């Protein structure tokens, strides 16, 4: 059985978690007054890196409703490391590519 390390609850059975998708940074808010750039938002919402290799994703421990970020390898099906949001976003400077 797969075990995922939750920063709040420790190692738990994978069935207690759901995957929330790739960590991506949203487009900058519209400051032009012309409204949001639909292409940019469609990219952000629909397009995926879908990497074969190490990815960073949102995960949620459902029982406690706790969201965090996990690094895992999509080629070997191994969970590598889990971060609290504070840890993860503390690492990346605002505006950095989140991939």
């Amino acid at each position, binding site marked *: 059985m797969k075990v995922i390390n939750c920063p709040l609850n420790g190692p738990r059975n994978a069935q207690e978690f759901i*995957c929330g998708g790739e960590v991506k940074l949203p487009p900058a808010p519209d400051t032009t007054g012309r409204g949001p750039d*639909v292409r940019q938002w469609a990219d952000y919402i629909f397009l*995926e890196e879908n990497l074969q290799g190490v990815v960073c994703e949102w995960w949620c421990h459902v029982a406690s409703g706790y969201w965090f970020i996990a690094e895992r390898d999509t080629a070997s*099906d191994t969970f590598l490391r889990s971060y609290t949001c504070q840890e993860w976003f503390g690492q990346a400077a605002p505006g950095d590519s989140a991939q």
Partner: protein
Amino acid sequence: MPLGLLKYGFRNKYRGQRYFPAEAPLRPSYDVVIIGGGGHGLACAYYLARDWGITNVAVLEKGWLASGNTARNTTIIRSNYLTPEGALFYEESLELYRSLANELGVNLMYSERGHLTLAHTDAAIRTSRWRAEVNKHLGIDSELIGPDEIARLCPQLDLSDEVRYPILGALYHPPGAIARHDAVAWGYARGAMELGVEIHQQTEVTGIEVRNGRLAGLETNRGTVAAGKVLQAVAGMSSVVARMAGFKLPIRSIPLQACVSEPLKPFLDPIIVSGSLHAYISQSARGELVMGGSTDPYPLYSTRSTLDFTEGLMAHMLELFPFLGKASVMRQWAGIADMTPDFSPVMGLTPVKNYYVDAGWGTWGFKATPVSGKRMAETIATGEVPELLKPFELERFYRLQQVGERGAASVGH
């Protein structure tokens, strides 16, 4: 050995015949190169040659012929989708399938069984009625039926109300069918080769050269190949190959697992699907029960099998057919499904000129093999996307016009 037999063996009239023509050496340039030798790539190659006279075509397959999802699917063929765009598209595929065995000269074991999507909740009954009405309006044979009619079509189902999710009704689609997946791929491959198409196995595309937004050539593990036009039809590897050409897709690669039981006497005629229970089952001509459910819980490029899957599936399967508790599971496997957010495919043009995409087939693409092959061939030959494919272009995500088929495709495939 009886002499008579030897005589036959040496007579020219009875010479051994190859199923496929001999493979040709890889040439440095083709009019069209198709990346991916699964059902979709092979069908496209066949129709390029048959319908458009384009025969200077190579299909490049990194492994063995049709060893991807084409070899791993549970072969459900149907057209009772929810959106008019989807239903019309899959209906054209069914029409092509019906005459395909004759056309390709291969026994596809195409078998119309009838397809039942069970409804266990009021919400599911509503969706079934909605689908039935959309289908009927488009001339597709599809109706909502009650438990009596279900019992007539499939007396083996546990229709009692002493289960967790009693069966309230079903969407019945008489043309629902199963077929032999390998035969479909081999038939298209042989048909294409007889018309002059080359198929190169063990030939992996490792890079795509793009100059000024146009396709310039391909890198493979066997050297560079130039091509006028290229189609990628690589299912689970869609994002990986598209990235070589410099663009992203609205796709997550997620394993889909399936399994078969030991062979049993034929007893199950229709294909039974339960969306609420995440389970479906049919009986193959060999007697094996072919069973599956929804995709794995997270994206992955590994085709490992899990016990979680079989346990979860069987818990529900036994609610439908309690006597299956005595049958044993014989094989289990996975394929990497290219899942889109709206459960519809991505077909047509890409941001790269002369580079085309056929992807997003997720858990539902086997049934679309003929129509996507035919219509992608038309797209490549004419450079224009046919009306039938327009709703499925990559651009739909920028127009915010998804073709929502989740309710009709997530478990039913």
